[in-house]
């Protein structure tokens, strides 16, 4: 491709990204702001594709723009009162006092100084030739990692410990959300057109998730992208008014939520018992072990993200009766 054309493309893309971020943060309406943020995420995914980061582009489109957008939109929908409060605050802004003005300017200046420092550090890093020892070590050991996609090799083999802790972070966050448990609004059953769409969309999403999981071993994809796609199926079902969202009930759901961390730990500890380092897979088994861990992780990530979206365990008739009982007891 022509170098000048590429430069123009980069310039326009970056202009679009920075303007969308600015518009999203400066918008006077929360709903507009969220929709602009989703657009920002999607354009960002194009930028990751441009910078040869296809794995990140897939995750950004599915999680950064898709699921975060759904979460934020649901949050705007649930809080019309808060939106009004936000608007009231904005209307106060024009008659701000001198002190307020001073504060705004000093914060802006400090942020500009931070951007300048970051830019300086970054340019300094770019000006020196990069030490390619880490990428070289990865490509030298890729054969033994059990997968041929270097990003999956880093995530599930070379730095598997980080990914284990990441799954633990995800589990902790959803436990926090469930602990504050307010069952959120249940959506009305979908009309015939949306229901027809859901019937087509959910199987396609499940199939795509399976494909992304399998292909992650040798091409962009993997447990996180697959889990997010599967979670999207759950979100669609929730929006269409399905009460159980395709999730199992009770204890099985708790096991599913913990499956990612549990299988990861079980594999790591069994290897430790066999006299290998923690999560140090024998090269002959590495591919199979990674697939097992990724399958469990995908299911756990999907269940966790759906529960994070719903904000509470899905209500079945039994739990609804139980919660009514609790409420009656509280009233007494």
């Amino acid at each position, binding site marked *: 491709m022509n170098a000048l054309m590429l430069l123009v493309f980069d310039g326009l893309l970056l202009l679009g990204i920075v303007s969308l971020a600015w518009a999203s943060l400066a918008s006077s309406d929360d709903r507009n702001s969220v929709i602009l943020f989703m657009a*920002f995420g999607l354009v960002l995914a194009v930028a990751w594709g441009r*910078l040869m980061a296809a794995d990140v582009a897939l995750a950004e489109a599915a999680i*950064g723009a898709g699921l975060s957008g759904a979460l934020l939109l649901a949050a705007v929908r649930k809080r019309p009162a808060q939106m009004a409060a936000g608007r009231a605050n904005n209307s106060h802004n024009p008659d701000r006092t001198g002190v307020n003005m001073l504060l705004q300017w000093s914060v802006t200046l400090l942020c500009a100084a931070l951007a300048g420092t970051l830019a300086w550090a970054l340019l300094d890093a770019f000006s020196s030739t990069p030490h390619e020892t880490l990428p070289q070590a990865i490509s030298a050991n890729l054969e033994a990692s059990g997968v041929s996609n270097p990003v999956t090799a880093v995530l599930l083999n070379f730095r598997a410990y980080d990914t284990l802790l990441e799954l633990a972070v995800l589990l902790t966050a959803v436990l926090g959300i469930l602990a504050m448990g307010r069952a959120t609004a249940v959506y009305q059953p979908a009309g015939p057109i949306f229901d027809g769409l859901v019937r087509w969309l959910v199987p396609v999403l499940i199939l795509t998730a399976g494909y992304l999981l399998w292909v992650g071993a040798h091409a962009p994809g993997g447990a996180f992208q697959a889990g997010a796609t599967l979670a999207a199926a759950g979100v669609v079902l929730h929006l269409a008014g399905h009460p159980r969202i395709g999730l199992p009930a009770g204890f099985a759901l708790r096991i599913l939520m913990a499956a990612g961390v549990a299988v990861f730990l079980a594999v790591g500890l069994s290897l430790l018992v066999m006299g290998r380092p923690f999560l140090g897979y024998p090269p002959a088994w590495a591919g199979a072990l990674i697939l097992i861990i990724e399958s469990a992780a995908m299911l756990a990530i999907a269940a966790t993200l759906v529960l994070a979206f719903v904000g509470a365990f899905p209500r079945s008739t039994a739990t609804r009766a139980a919660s009514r009982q609790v409420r009656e007891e509280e009233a007494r």
Partner: protein
Amino acid sequence: MLTAHVMYGLSGCLLVALGLRTTLLHASLLRRVLAINVMGAGVFMMLIAVAYRGLGVPPDPVPHALVLTGIVVAVSATALALALARRLHAEHDNG
């Protein structure tokens, strides 16, 4: 010289500053959560720019793995922050 990784890296710095400013100055909790996400996107952009080696050249996979982890942690933190904000507003409305 205005190469691609310099352009993307500097835009990342700009996004961090933009996000931080709104996080500190805006009153609405929802907008602050958005602003923190924009800051995160800026950090991701710097990391991906550092990993970039040119069109058609395999990039450094380590920053890519870091950003993937970051995206998932960011969405968990966003969900938790929104749940906290919702609870806060519910308490406020009741009290």
